[in-house]
């Protein structure tokens, strides 16, 4: 739940059900969580799986500390990071991924997996993800493939001269 809340801070989405606590509902359309961020994080290929429990504990510790210094009272019914509002999750995450933070590398890695889940759907085959209406790929407008699962764009060019070439261009088309 904590990792979901973090992924939702990176690419926010709409709540999956009424009362969804991990996903804050800060944006329309599915976000990183609905796009399979957790599936990607636990994938054997990714190399993050072994660290996830530690990362979740770390995030909650950071949230507890954040609440203490900002005077927030956290709802004990959910993990501390989840208990933060979307604005506070965003403020804390900004601190964690900043160059000055000693654990920046860990949190940036977690953020990168969240972005990739949304706009590549890398936990599943892209053709399958698109066919299933993968939220991120659909929202970025990723064009579906041909029937054989491969992409081809027969129309690709404005087809006309659009600028003068550099006057020193060589006969081979290179810079002089």
């Amino acid at each position, binding site marked *: 739940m904590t990792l979901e809340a973090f992924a939702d*801070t990176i690419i926010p989405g709409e709540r999956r059900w009424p009362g969804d606590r991990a996903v804050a509902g800060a944006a329309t359309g599915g976000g990183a969580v609905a796009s399979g961020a957790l599936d990607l994080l636990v994938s054997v290929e990714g190399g993050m799986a072994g660290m996830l429990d530690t990362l979740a504990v770390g995030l909650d510790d950071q949230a507890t500390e954040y609440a203490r210094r900002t005077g927030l009272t956290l709802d004990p019914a959910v993990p501390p990071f989840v208990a933060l509002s979307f604005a506070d999750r*965003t403020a804390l995450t900004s601190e964690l*991924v900043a160059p000055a933070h000693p654990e920046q590398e860990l949190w940036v890695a977690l*953020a990168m997996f969240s972005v990739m889940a949304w706009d*590549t759907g890398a*936990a599943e085959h892209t053709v399958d993800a698109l066919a299933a209406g993968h939220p991120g790929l659909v929202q970025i*407008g990723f064009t579906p493939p041909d029937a054989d*699962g491969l992409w081809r764009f027969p129309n690709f060019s404005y087809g006309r001269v659009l600028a003068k070439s550099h006057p020193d261009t060589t006969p081979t088309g290179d810079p002089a």
Partner: protein
Amino acid sequence: MTTTDSTDVVIIGSGFGGSIPAYRLAAGGARVVVLERGPWLSGEDFDHDFKFGSSSSRAFEFTMGDGMNVLGGNCVGGGSVVYFAAMPRAPRFTFERQGSIGKRLWPSAVHRAALDPWYDAVAESLPITQNDWPDVTYSGGLWAAACNHAGRTANPVPAAIDKSKCTNCNWMMSGCRFDAKRSLLLNYIPAAVEHGAQIRPLHEVQYISRTPDNGYRVHFNTVDEVDYREVTGSGTIDAKIVIVAAGAVATPVILQRSEEALGAMPSAVGRHFSGNGERLNTAIVNEDKVREVLGLSRPDGKAYEAYQIGKGPVAASWDKLDGNLPEFSRHSLEQLYFPPGFGTILAQVPDATGPSWFGLEKKEILRRWQSWLTIFIMSEDDNEGVFGPPPPTGNGDRISQQLLSRGALRYRPTENTLAGWERADADVRDILERDGLSRVMPWTNDPIGAYTVHPLSSCRIGDDPETSALDDRHELRGHPGIFVTDGSSVPAGLTVNPAFTIAALAERAVPGIVEAAAARGVPVRYVDRPPAHATSSRIRIPLGV
């Protein structure tokens, strides 16, 4: 498992720096073995798929450093399999660069005119062809039209792509499914194999030692084809000549690790790394302005919305490739495509009120992804990268099964480099923000530091032993018989895509290597005929291991 073997020439790495000598030495009669760390992929192995474990992660290595991150090839064919095939020659002035040391960085024997015949040889061998305007994709056309609107020029970029086979699918970073991209899998590598060269994939070289007969012993691990972290065996192979061409983030590491066995390395091994002054800007295009201001529209009525369509970079601004400008103020600006994931994470929201590279506003610009235009800056950096002590194996500690590792490269951009980036960013803005065409932001360096897809100079040629690890024949100083022919040998950033120059330098180095091999008793002569062109990359060759 331990194997011992011997041959005339061992080549470490199968990118441009490895495959070119592999072909020419094998054709000339030498016994050649190429050890390649990555897998041997071809044809239908090249997936149109973002899934982890597809060719998009199998064929790559993303090596994270301290302040510099490097994306490079990790497969037979090396960078040529995953590159965008943009092949401009380096401008004349770049060979005269002095960096910040006040004297010419390149050896006196190497300048543009001296390299042109070798460029010609590569151009014929791949081959490289000029693009014309009907070949220029929507995104390249948009960039060219914007340059023109700003009173600037723009050029279609020469490329190693077979236009008749290209589908403009823009998956070429995962390898070309249609064999339209003229990677080394279609020319030098099959020609090398035809002449008896052995290519051994999944062989990761660790270090080099000496043999009693004044030759060299190359020590390698074999790695699992799915999980590259898993070592499946080890062995050695003896040779009279060793060519190190493992790429600019691996070659210096292998040599550093070899120091204990071989003796002191030149001080420039693992120093002077350049990221080719690279940097990216992403523009979020105003579709209405594209139509109104530039007069562009597609047959389907859209003005642009075509970021996904194409074949990498096809149009570039070369106005600032001007030898009259001072160093660190020259750059090229090339339109580029990067797929989602790698190509989106560091892009920043223009006028962000909250976080610029993640969060609510980032999601909004991602929803306009088809209206993105990415501009690739190649400028002049200051060769400020330095490699720390090598990791236990390979060139980095592997984090994921494939793709991701952490290396020992440290990079802190100097004021020269930062000023060059700033000028180039301003240049992009000047062109793309005119009359409301778009809003542009450079990619952020905050999360991971700088990045490059063209690592260079970590073991460079030169005349000065203090600042160059190799002499002008690419031989490692103090270690006769060891040559370095990959991007690490290029003395400094080139202001353009470097693959063509790396290839031309490798071609230029071959006669000297032939001479050295012959002097060591290898029955080899120099062969200047170009490699035969294969029509398919899908040739499975007995590996002879």
